[in-house]
């Protein structure tokens, strides 16, 4: 039997004016198990807390009920005070007689009666309370960053700067991501390579950072502070340590007809390749889909030519097992496939290109050496049409995206401006629905494109692109001039919507991190916790969470790093003790709870149980990881056998409250 003390707060006149606090205290004093009762003006004051602590000591209380304001205000205060006096803080319950009683009622009799009932319910609950202690778990002081684009690079650098080890897993042969393919960056127009490649080198040279390029996350187990991850290192058929990156093999390989993905297929590379000159790590990779040696066993040119002896045709995928305290998702984005937008003739004419392709053909390291040339015939285009919002802002019934891709307005302004600057004799048209340029110096940038560079911005949309001879006839509306235009363009550039990388969805499943319908990772809170996933220990950096430009990505990446550092700084994690637990004797291992758990906190174990006839039997039972469980209680209701229960809000406790109220 508990020894319970009841403390009724006046809250000055806030409670006492409408509730007869003395009557409440006396009435509750008669409840079974209550050995002490008191009313006081301000329970939350120093004096009030001392009263609680004294009563605990003097009357050997095992639990307390404070009738006062909302538990959202002072539950923590009273629990802390009780703990100092030697009573487990979870033995204190609050009866909310201010916000949910005295403030909403005028009739004193009614309010007093209700306060007594609320007090009774709290007492009934305390009777069934048990001391709870928060579990502790150690923290592995190492972070994993999945994705080596600018988001992953920035997060990794910031974490490493704080003194923690970081591993970057990148599925491509080099880190750098989309930013490495971009020519210039808005709104300052500095060259992307000039600001990115030093960071890539920094990553490579940082002692705290390891890069696993050409690798993928294969399996994730564990929970916040204690993840155990298996990383698949795909066979690149080149020894990373021996390869010096001299590039001789990439010049001599006889298989020349491989579409170069770094240039989006606008030119060709060899079967053994280094994606670009500043690649990190600067190591060659053999493409097994094209390598003659790997396919037929007849060639071996690269192996003969490599003085370092780095070529290894027998290399196999290998696996690395590593422990991490935190995981950062930085899987980034891709432009959508445009094969469903053939009214723009993307698949019918090589001169209809995406904006990312346009970046490559204006990039000095691109297929045209930075000269703007049409892919079809290598001539200078004299009239260029940019089409915005291709696949963005749709109603969701088609193949497009419902959201605004956010970056297109600015990069299109950049493309238009740069074209006009370099080739003033080129006419540039931009078709827009809205020009969206919120951001520091962004709108000024767009206006400069119009006012200083004379780019024709036309409010309207392109309806059809008709390749005819060497021209692209662009049929479009000009809504402001109420005209339908027919422009004989030489090049059409489509601002394709961006979408999360395809690898994100399976990764989210592995991490039990939630995603929205567009496959963007969801945040723990859209405003207040924007860089964390609801799953503890999983953090979000860059476009995997939503469309972002580079400045925004970098700020988010650093914010994400700050959160990771905050976690890794701690030696131990204290959990919330109000978590679910399963009664193994009742559990029948049906997996229902596992399916409703949004955090992946429930796993199954085969355990041996002693049967009544003294034989041993192995049964499959649920087991809750208290470090991962957030205590929502979904499993407790889903459980068909009643084995699951929730500490702090157990079935019997809530039932007791119901009983007390309905008495």
């Amino acid at each position, binding site marked *: 039997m508990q020894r319970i003390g009841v403390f009724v707060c006046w809250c000055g006149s806030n409670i006492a004016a409408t509730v007869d606090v003395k009557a409440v205290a006396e009435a509750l004093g008669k409840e079974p198990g209550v050995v002490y009762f008191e009313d006081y003006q301000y329970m939350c004051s120093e004096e009030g807390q001392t009263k609680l602590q004294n009563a605990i000591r003097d009357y050997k209380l095992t639990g307390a009920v404070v009738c006062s304001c909302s538990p959202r205000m002072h539950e923590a205060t009273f629990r802390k005070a009780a703990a100092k006096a030697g009573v487990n803080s979870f033995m204190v319950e609050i009866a909310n007689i201010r916000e949910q009683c005295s403030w909403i009622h005028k009739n004193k009799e009614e309010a007093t009666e209700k306060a007594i009932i609320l007090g009774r319910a709290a007492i009934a609950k305390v009777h069934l309370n048990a001391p709870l202690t928060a579990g502790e778990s150690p923290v592995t002081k190492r972070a994993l960053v999945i994705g080596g684009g600018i988001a992953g690079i920035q997060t990794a650098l910031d974490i490493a700067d704080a003194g923690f080890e970081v591993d970057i897993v990148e599925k491509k042969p080099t880190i750098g991501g989309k930013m490495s393919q971009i020519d210039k960056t808005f709104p300052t127009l500095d060259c992307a390579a000039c600001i990115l490649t030093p960071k890539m080198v920094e990553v490579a040279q940082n002692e705290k950072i390891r890069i696993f390029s050409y690798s993928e996350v294969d399996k994730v187990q564990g929970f916040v502070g204690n993840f155990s991850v298996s990383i698949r290192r795909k066979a690149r058929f080149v020894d990373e340590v021996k390869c010096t990156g001299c590039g001789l093999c990439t010049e001599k390989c006889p298989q020349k007809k491989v579409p170069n993905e770094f240039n989006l297929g606008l030119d060709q590379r060899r079967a053994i390749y280094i994606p670009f000159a500043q690649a990190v790590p600067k190591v060659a990779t053999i493409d097994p889909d094209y390598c003659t040696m790997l396919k037929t066993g007849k060639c071996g040119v690269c192996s003969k030519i490599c003085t370092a002896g780095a070529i290894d045709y027998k290399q196999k995928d290998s696996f690395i097992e590593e422990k991490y305290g935190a995981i950062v998702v930085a899987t980034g984005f891709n432009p959508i496939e445009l094969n469903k937008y053939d009214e723009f003739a993307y698949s*019918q004419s090589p001169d209809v290109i995406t904006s990312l392709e346009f970046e490559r053909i204006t990039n000095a390291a691109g297929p045209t050496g930075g000269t703007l040339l049409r892919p079809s015939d290598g001539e200078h285009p004299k009239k260029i049409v940019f089409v915005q919002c291709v696949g963005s802002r749709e109603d969701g019934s088609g193949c497009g995206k419902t959201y605004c891709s956010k970056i297109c307005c600015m990069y299109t302004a950049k493309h238009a401006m740069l074209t006009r600057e370099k080739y003033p004799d080129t006419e540039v048209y931009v078709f827009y629905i809205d020009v969206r340029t919120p951001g520091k110096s962004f709108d000024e940038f767009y206006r400069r494109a119009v006012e200083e560079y004379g780019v024709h911005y036309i409010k309207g949309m392109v309806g*059809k692109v008709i390749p*005819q*001879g060497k021209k692209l006839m662009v049929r479009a509306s000009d809504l402001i001039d109420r005209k339908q235009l027919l422009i004989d363009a030489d090049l059409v550039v489509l601002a394709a919507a961006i979408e999360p990388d395809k690898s994100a969805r399976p990764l989210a499943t592995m991490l039990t991190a939630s995603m929205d319908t567009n496959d963007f990772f969801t945040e723990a809170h859209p405003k207040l916790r924007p860089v964390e996933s609801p799953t503890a220990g999983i953090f979000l950096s860059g476009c995997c969470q939503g469309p972002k430009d580079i400045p925004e990505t970098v700020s988010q990446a650093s914010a994400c790093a700050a959160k990771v550092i905050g976690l890794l700084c701690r030696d131990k994690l204290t959990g919330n003790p109000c978590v679910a637990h399963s009664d193994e004797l009742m559990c029948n291992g049906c997996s229902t709870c596992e399916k409703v758990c949004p955090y992946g906190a429930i796993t199954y174990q085969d355990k041996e149980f002693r049967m009544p006839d003294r034989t041993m039997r192995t049964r499959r039972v649920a087991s809750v990881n208290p470090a991962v469980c957030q205590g929502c209680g979904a499993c407790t209701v889903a459980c068909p056998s009643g084995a699951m229960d929730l500490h702090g809000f157990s079935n019997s406790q809530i039932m007791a409250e119901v009983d007390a109220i309905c008495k």
Partner: protein
Amino acid sequence: MVFSYYPGCTLRTRAKELDEKARKCAEALGITLEEIPDWQCCGGCYPVASDEIATRLSAVRALMAAKSEERPLVTLCSACHNVLKRTRHDLQTDETFRDRVNRYMGNDPVYAGEGEVIHFLEMLRDKVGFDTIRAAVKNPLTGRRIAAYYGCLLLRPSGVMAFDDPENPTVIEDFIRALGAESVAWSMRNECCGSYMALEDKGIVERKSGSVLANAKAQGADTVITACPLCLYNLQKFGGQDLPVVYFTELLYEALGL
């Protein structure tokens, strides 16, 4: 294989020879087209407004006739195909329409758009197969550069027609290649020819059909084929180009050596 067949008004009168050639081609490919009894004109174009019930009834009757034979219903004209397929879709998805139609016609059991409607081209692609056609070709049209003209009715609305990719269709191109000719890439192939404006305002049709054929010519076509008698008429009469326009079955007839 035996299929139910809905010839439609134009192929029954003005374009009789197209109908005859289509039947002969089908037979050569091992298919018997059995005309459904007492068919009525589909109305030429699908009535878009949801409260137009009576104007869709003839299509419902045709669908039901094919359903009772338990055979797919083949159409040769794109317009009929469009009306039949969309009416069938309405029967399947629009409860009010289905109810009213069934009550008016006194159907028991209720007809809810069961049965398949396919265009002659779909029949060639899905039921016969272009490989079979390629094998059956006696006079391959080698060296010919043929442009496939789809028009609007075959493709749109794509959600209902489910015929091919509405912006980048391939079925007629595949058909052309199966006959041994080269298909021309051009993008006016799914733009309107001017359609029923032929009656009232020939100027519009001249402009529409003119720009269609100009694009085909510029892209190097020596022949244009269509799958709709009205497109055929408009392009031939108002296209304003020295470019032969023929029905796709005529080409098939020629290639099969009939």
